[in-house]
């Protein structure tokens, strides 16, 4: 007779959460593999434009980054015009020469000629500041530049 009486109260068993850590660990490994530790905090707005004739930066060659754009929220005291950011502080075009020389001093001799300068400029910035950056780079003979963009339709930058 005990085989036929219902002992359970009729509750639905709770969801087994033993696999939840597995899912979270998978997400964690994804992020550990795909991402890079952020080097600099950006004090400027930096939405990159899109282009389709893009090439990946060669990771084996040294790269220096120059950021430019309007100061983001919280840093309005630096103005509303587009500014240059080198490493982690604002800079003027005249500081670019010193920046490039210090980057070159910290890398090996034979790699200096492979230095590529990646210009990460906000898509709403003016060409005035970009022209100044390019002029300063020409003065220090850092001629390999790369306009950082995302991959996409270039015609959507026109708005």
């Amino acid at each position, binding site marked *: 007779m005990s085989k036929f009486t219902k002992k359970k109260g009729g509750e639905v068993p709770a969801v087994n959460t033993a696999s939840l850590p597995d899912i979270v660990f998978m997400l964690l490994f994804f992020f550990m593999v795909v991402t890079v530790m952020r080097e600099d905090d950006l004090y400027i707005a930096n939405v990159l434009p899109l*282009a389709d004739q893009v090439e990946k930066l060669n990771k084996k060659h040294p790269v220096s980054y120059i950021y430019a754009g309007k100061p983001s929220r919280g840093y309005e005291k630096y103005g509303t015009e587009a500014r240059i950011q080198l490493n982690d502080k604002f800079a003027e075009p005249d500081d670019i020469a010193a920046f490039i020389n210090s980057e070159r001093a910290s890398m090996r001799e034979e790699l200096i000629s492979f230095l590529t300068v990646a210009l990460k400029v906000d898509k709403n910035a003016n060409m*005035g500041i970009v022209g100044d950056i390019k002029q300063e780079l020409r003065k220090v003979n850092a001629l390999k530049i790369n306009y*950082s963009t995302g991959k996409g339709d270039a015609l959507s*930058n026109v708005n």
Partner: protein
Amino acid sequence: MAKRAAPEVNAGSMADIAFLLLIFFLVTTTIPKDSGINRLLPPMEDSDEDVIIKQKNIFTVLLNGKDQLLVEDELMEVKDLRKAAVKFLDNGGDGSCNYCEGLKDARSSDNPDKAIISLKNERETSYGVYISVQNELVAAYNQLRNRRALEIGPQRGFRNMNFVEMQRNYKDVKFSGNKTKLKELIDQIKVEFPQKLSEVQ
């Protein structure tokens, strides 16, 4: 009384640890955007001002402060720029170019190696439009170089590879073909359609 089964280790805190690590990585890392358009700036001393260049061999592209495009003194949309640049470069006006498929218009460029595209912008031009224009001009060169690569590639043993793929294969360590021959082919195509893009300031 039935014996209770041995209690399982409570795995509830595993999820907490994993969440903490995940949040740490989400906050401190970024997905790198390391793609872009490679350009070479011209060196500072430019003393070759005395080279006589015919006006028809120069393709003027002007961007004004309101992001309007003036190509060869006519207003143009950015989406038409690629076709116009290809038409200019591929023209082969004086007949010396045997790989050009253009219209051979006498008012346009003579030969791709004499054709110069001159890009001028103003300080107020927005960077996004400048990049779109650069993109379209580089695309025009790549379109012509790709076509040429597909024409002469098979004779040298590189079938079904356009110019962009050739460059990518040359840089790829896993490529199994003859890299010296590939480099010669790439250099030949670069000589046939040189990127003479001058940005006067």
